[in-house]
């Protein structure tokens, strides 16, 4: 292990007295305190539950699956997202679709949100742009089971949010 020598700038006699430097420091903090007091609107804090931080357009929240015009999932169960998913939190079961134009559709589409790392690779991999990540990030729940998303969960609340597509 190498030793790193840190050279501190030399202090002059005034600085070595500390008292005045401390006073200067107090002045700086007081300036901030007074600013906070009289201009609270300039604080960078978001008062969270009431005020939500505006999200970046590319923010990656929980997943959703787009629908076709008839309400069925746009997903064709190609397993690309399941394949690419680094923590392997996606589990698809495919079946034959009734619609001859569609061929294949997911019978089950499970996402284990507890395992998901929200990397967005599934979105990247999707050849149909069916899966996307919404802006929904308030994902706390009471049981583990409630955080296992099924196809129905992924299809609901489409209009509430727009996410990365």
């Amino acid at each position: 292990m190498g030793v790193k020598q840190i050279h501190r700038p030399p202090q002059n006699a005034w600085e070595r007295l500390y008292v005045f430097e401390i006073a200067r420091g107090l002045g700086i903090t007081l300036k901030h305190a007074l600013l906070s007091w009289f201009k609270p609107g300039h604080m960078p804090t978001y008062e969270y539950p009431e005020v939500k931080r505006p999200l970046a357009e590319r923010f990656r929240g929980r997943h959703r699956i787009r629908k076709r015009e008839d309400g069925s999932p746009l997903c064709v169960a190609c397993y690309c997202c399941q394949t690419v998913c680094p923590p392997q939190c996606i589990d698809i079961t495919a079946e034959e679709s009734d619609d001859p134009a569609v061929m294949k559709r997911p019978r089950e589409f499970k996402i284990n949100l507890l395992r998901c790392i929200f990397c967005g690779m599934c979105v990247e991999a999707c050849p149909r742009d069916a899966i996307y990540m919404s802006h929904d990030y308030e994902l706390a729940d009471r049981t583990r089971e409630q955080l296992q998303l099924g196809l129905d969960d992924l299809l609901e609340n489409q209009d509430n949010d727009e996410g990365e597509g």
Partner: protein
Amino acid sequence: MIPEWVQDILTSKWTWAALALVVAYVLTLVGIVVYTWLERRGAAFIQRRPGPNRRGPYGIVQAVADAVKLATKEDVVPAGANKWLHAVAPMIGMTVALTIIAVIPFSGDFELFGQTFRLQIADMNFGFIFILAISSLAVYGVALGGWSSNNKYSLLGSLRSGAQMISYEISLGLSLVGVLLIYNTVKLDEMVIAQTGAIWHWGVVQAPMAFLIFLTSSYAEANRVPFDLVEADSELVAGFHTEYSSLRFGLFYMGEYVHMAVSAILTVILFFGGWHIPWAEEIFGSAPYVTLFPWLLFGAALVCLVIAWDTSRPRRRVHTRGNLLLAFLLVCVAGSAAALGGLYLAGDVQTEIPWLASICGMLTQVIVLVLKFAFFFWLFIWVRWTLPRFRYDQLMKLGWKVMLPLALLNIGVTGVLVLLGVL
């Protein structure tokens, strides 16, 4: 004019001792609610964030919530701890800090029906020595707390703290010797009286070096930043109170604030003229505080109105409506205060009811003291969020190699100056 029994009560020595006790307890125990709130919001404001602002107006009820939380926590006594000492240790710190309050005068002498009183719990003629004697006991609370926890970090923390408190105790005591030389008394009330009049009678002007040493040492005594090595979390977890939870931890926590409060009052008493306003006699005549009282009331009314106006506004950032009820109550308080002030002026209380005027003058002094105290308490917080923590070797170096020689030098110089009659 007033009933005999009222007069009896007013002229009883116990009445005023009891009132002093009330003031003392308000400033320490009840004050903790405000202090913790002040600490947290002060820290937040210095760091440009809102801090606790949810419970109660300006978040002031947060401290109560904290207290309830602490009180309902499980009281853990670690295995292998000395149960008795573990229980007693937090009480020692608290008791010591509270005991010091006994000798602090909160007002000057005032006359009632021909007798003289002072707002002080125990008027000892060795008050100053008492403070030094008692405050040195505080180290026991810390040392025993750490030792009885059966935890190496606690022990290390308490040893550090013990060493620190003893080291700075010396500088603290020596710095005050200079003050003693100047005031030529050990009674606190006499010290305050010595600071009457022009601002250069104040201890801080007369003995600035003693003031600096005293202030620094009192920070170290109270284990506050920049000398809070006891609870250097990164090195010692939480120092001597690592193994404390629930109300026992709460006692340590409160003890620290009481300690700070006592230090702040002492600073005011010793160096900042106590309850005195500089040149008060010159400006307001022979009984300045009695004259000032109604104006104090008007000032309080104004403050209430400002707060009422502020609380009545909707909080845009948290989407809450204004607290109209609180604003209304505050307006009522302001109105009452203003009315009382008006009555006081119109009634010419000073000549008509001299005993009431005396009491009002005394109250004014208490309030002046409290306002000065408030600044020094804020200084504690202010310094905490400004300065970083000392390293242990730096702490010891400062204590023994800087503070101690300076304090000794200060005694010598002061003594010479006193001998020469300069001071």
